[in-house]
């Protein structure tokens, strides 16, 4: 029995593609294709990848927007696909999500107060209207918004302010685990900095656990203790964040890091060599055989297109899925 807060084992999610009048399934979008990782209490876990990697889908599975096709997800030891109605109520108070786009994650026709009191009403957290107002004022102050914003509508708020409201909404139910799905991608640099510091502060104050999903490597570096790199539905490298960035081993990880345009000289010098020929990201409907990165990889040879490499622990806590990376230390599974 493990004591991880969250335990994901061989998670698979396929979306069927249906055509025709009778909606016949002709194939699958292999969004998540066998993913396993653990998150401990009070920890921030980073999930990095580009489009088609499946990282957002994983986040949505964890809050039960989607149901897994295969695999298990254990939260506090309980399988989230087998929750009773009562358990479900508790689960929704434990795990919450902050979406990427502040424009679409708040209902434009509802005032901020209405949006924030929703969870209070649904979970019967407050006793009456006055109680609810008090709690909402508190929440707004926690995310550094003036309580005067209560009666405003999202259209009169800036992107950063809306995102704060989204964070406040996630905090209403006092969760222990928050999925952050690209929470600052749509925001400017200075606003992003405020939000990230806010999230870090909240984490410290409430001992929260985060799953930080992003394509922005610098942010992941700041936010996550452990990071997994995803490509076309699978994890190709997973390591403690500092190690991942100082010593990236997988060719895709190296390509990713070297592709990011950077501001500072020290970053420029720390960039790894690119190990890719360029080319497009394949579609998750028909991923390449074997190792999905092989068509773009400069290290690829025959075995790469034939056999999917295993995720192997090449250094302590550092796993890589690649035929060409081998520091023979330990092999797991």
């Amino acid at each position, binding site marked *: 029995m493990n004591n991880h807060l969250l335990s994901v084992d061989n998670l698979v999610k396929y979306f069927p593609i249906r055509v025709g009048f009778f909606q016949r399934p002709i194939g699958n979008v292999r969004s998540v294709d066998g993913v396993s990782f653990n998150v401990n209490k009070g920890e921030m876990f980073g999930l990095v990848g580009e489009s088609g990697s499946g990282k957002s889908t994983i986040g949505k599975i964890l*809050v039960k*927007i989607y149901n897994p096709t295969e695999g298990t997800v254990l939260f506090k030891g309980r399988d989230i696909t087998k929750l009773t109605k009562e358990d479900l109520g508790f689960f*929704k108070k434990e795990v919450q999500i902050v979406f990427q786009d502040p424009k679409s994650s708040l209902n*434009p026709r509802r005032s901020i107060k209405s949006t924030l009191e*929703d969870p209070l009403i649904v979970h019967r957290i407050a006793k009456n209207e006055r109680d609810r107002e008090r709690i909402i004022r508190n929440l707004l102050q926690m995310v550094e918004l003036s309580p005067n914003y209560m009666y405003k509508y999202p*259209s009169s708020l800036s992107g950063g302010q809306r995102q704060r409201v989204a964070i406040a909404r996630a905090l209403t139910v006092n969760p222990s685990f928050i999925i952050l799905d690209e929470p600052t991608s749509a925001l400017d640099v200075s606003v992003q900095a405020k939000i990230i510091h806010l999230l870090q502060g909240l984490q410290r104050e409430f001992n929260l656990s985060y799953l930080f999903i992003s394509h922005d490597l610098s942010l992941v570096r700041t936010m996550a203790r452990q990071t997994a790199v995803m490509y076309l539905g699978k994890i190709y490298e997973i390591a403690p964040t500092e190690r991942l960035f100082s010593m990236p081993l997988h060719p895709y990880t190296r390509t990713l890091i070297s592709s990011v345009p950077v501001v500072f000289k020290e970053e420029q010098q720390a960039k790894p060599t690119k190990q890719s020929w360029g080319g497009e990201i394949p579609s998750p409907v028909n991923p390449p055989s074997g190792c999905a990165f092989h068509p773009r990889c400069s290290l690829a040879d025959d075995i790469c297109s034939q056999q999917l490499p295993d995720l192997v622990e090449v250094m302590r806590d550092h796993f890589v899925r690649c035929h060409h990376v081998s520091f023979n230390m330990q092999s797991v599974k």
Partner: protein
Amino acid sequence: MKNKQEVTSSVNQELNITQWMVFKDKVGRSWYRFRRNPISITGASMVLLVILLAMLAPYVTPYPHHAGAFTDLPNAFQSPSKTHWFGTDEIGRDLFTRVIFGYRISLILAVIVLGISVPLGVILGLTAGYFGGKIETIIMRFTDIFLALPPLVMALAICAAFTPTIEKAMLAIASIWWTWHCRLVHGITKSIKTEEFVQASRVIGDSHFRIIFKDILPNCISAIIVKITLDAGFVILVGAGLSFLGLGAQPPKSDLGTMISYGAQYLPMKWWTTIFPSFAILFLILGFNLLGDGLRDMLDVESEGI
């Protein structure tokens, strides 16, 4: 040098903003957009004028007793004059008075028909759009069948099957009208359902009922309002059509359609008996259409968050 505390508080400082202030601002902005558009102002004025006249009919018409049963045969077929602005009809009743009272029937018709069909259509549309699957198929195919029938023909059939009265006419039209609103709301619901804020509500734990009425419905309201305004004109037209064929309000009630029907036989000599009631309908429908267009322009812009 200011310290950070001062900067933060002075920048975050807002006057105590209450719900009332926000509401006033919203209304003010909407009014500003509305009154900039000459189309909406014209339409609104026309509709308001008719409504006022209709409500105050007994007080603003010169011969209120002419509205119902009344005969004054010596005065029949008077052409328009100072004493009878619209002239008199075939049994001597003042046409202007009857037209204004006729507006009453038309407006009540619109209110009752829409009052029944809109809630019905909206609820069915929300249900179909939100739950999808078999429920959606059943409701929407049912809607399709009704949509395939021309409203006037359907209403005709229903009215003709029973003894025609104004009430049956209203029910007949309502029995078909809900389909348009069902389809409209169904479409909007389907697209709103995929929005992130609906997903967020699911994640919070909202029940389906709550999501439908608190998240989805508010986003449909502007489209529904525009449609109601444009519908009003069309409903009145259908009602007048039924009366024209003798299936609506029965004489001696003043009904615009009936008046047109009776007067048509006397064209072109006693033209006023048909032309004025026709023009009255035209005026009202035009007013509703202009108002609806203006509202649509105003609400479209609003939804873009300007």
